């Protein structure tokens, strides 16, 4: 084995990206807990904690640029670095979406829509992230396709949840007080945003899988 320092740096980058993904998944987990418990303080924690993710992101971006500039990676190494460079952007966006969810935690009252299972959708997206990152770590192409299939389920869940909320709103009896109207508007818009944000988390997980597939097999099949 030659270029030992370079090999070590590549291994470090992989470990660091995986660490970032764990931090991001943890943020999303906390945001979902905050939503479930309607815990505004916990939601706030997710928001302030985002600074750490941003810092990690910038650090890893710098590492990728340094590797490209100083080591002139080619072939599998190049694809690994290019994939990592893109994946950290998706992870950073997922963390941003988690802060959105954290922000809704103190405001929305989802019990008015008991049939909308935000936790179920959230768990699915977390599983997608985990599967995608496993594909990246283990270099397994099958797992990349699996993530893409899981996203179809998430999209379906999100669509039917949104439909349910809107249908319910239309069918609802006329609200009397201004206060009720206000509260309903807030609840509905927050809930629709929550659903949309989770749907976006799923999309980012698919992006991670797509970049991993490119890395593993030089295959851009899952990109768009």
């Amino acid at each position: 084995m030659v270029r030992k320092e370079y090999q070590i740096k590549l291994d470090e980058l992989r470990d660091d990206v995986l660490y970032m993904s764990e931090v991001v998944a943890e943020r999303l987990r906390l945001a979902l807990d905050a939503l479930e418990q309607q815990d505004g303080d916990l939601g706030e924690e997710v928001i302030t904690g985002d600074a750490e993710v941003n810092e990690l992101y910038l650090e890893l971006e710098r590492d990728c640029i340094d590797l490209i500039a100083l080591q002139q990676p080619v072939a599998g190494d190049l694809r690994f670095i290019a994939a990592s460079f893109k994946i950290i952007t998706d992870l950073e966006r997922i963390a941003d979406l988690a802060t959105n969810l954290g922000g809704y935690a103190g405001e929305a009252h989802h019990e008015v829509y008991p049939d909308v299972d935000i936790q179920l959708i959230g768990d699915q997206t977390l599983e997608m992230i985990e599967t995608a990152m496993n594909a990246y770590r283990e270099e397994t192409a099958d797992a990349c396709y699996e993530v893409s299939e899981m996203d179809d389920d998430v999209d379906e869940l999100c669509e039917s949840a949104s439909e349910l909320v809107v249908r319910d709103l239309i069918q609802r009896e006329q609200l009397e007080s201004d206060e009720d109207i206000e509260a309903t508007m807030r609840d509905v818009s927050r809930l629709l945003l929550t659903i949309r944000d989770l749907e976006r988390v799923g999309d980012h997980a698919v992006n991670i899988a797509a970049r991993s597939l490119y890395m593993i097999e030089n295959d851009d099949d899952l990109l768009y």
Partner: protein
Amino acid sequence: MSDSYHIQGTDADSSAAADPSPNDPSPSDSPANETVRPGETEELTPTIEEIPESQSVIRSEELTVHYGDEQALQPVTVGIPEREVTAIIGPSGCGKSTYLRCLNRMNDMIDAARISGTVRFRGADVYADDVDPVALRRKIGMVFQKPNPFPKSIYDNVAYGLKIQGFDGDMDARVEQALRDAALWDEVKDQLDSSGLDLSGGQQQRLCIARAIAPDPEVVLMDEPASALDPVATAKVEDLIADLSERYTVIIVTHNMQQAARISDKTAVFLTGGQLVEFGDTDQIFENPENQRVEDYITGKFG
């Protein structure tokens, strides 16, 4: 193996003849010493892009070279596309310079070299009995690692090949054109009578390129043409190679993989024991090589 050639040193010129491959093999990195891990030899099935006969200017078929008892080149069958830059890369002792030197019969100068198989230039066997190697080298010119201008004026260096050829046209115009094509004219036009040896290293190399292209060859072979140059001179030579490929077929041996990646359209990778392992589009080789050992070599996992 029926058409095998035993070449004796036929050409007069040859300080280079003493050493089979001056840049390459040292005892420590000869093929025999390369560590081959078990199970790896199977991966050496070559992946060679087929260049159609009509688009390849040079084609080698089952070309092998022995230096004495040592086989320097495993059978190489490949077509070199016309008016493109083909880079040949590989570790020391892999046979890349040996291969290059077969194409215009530079190996003729090495007594111990034994060549079999064929090299065709525009369909004609370059090792046929009636081929004059000196005439062949005007069609397939060569530029070496170390700039080697003749101890003559800049003008005479460029005019040399044309004079030998018996060219009786407008010599001044041809010299100027060759110097312009070699991106050297503006720097030397007021000192054409001064010695080529007075130029800087980078200028000397461009002078050698001007000398190689003055007789209007079809192919220019380059053996590590920029390895003795500083980065600025290297960049000039690289730019020049890109320009040259509009008119000539350029085949360049280089140790510098980034250089190969920057300047070539096709890349040939030679590995252990003189085998051509992969030949294809340069971007494909550097982004997604087919062969695992090519991947290991270009990413620096062995070498």
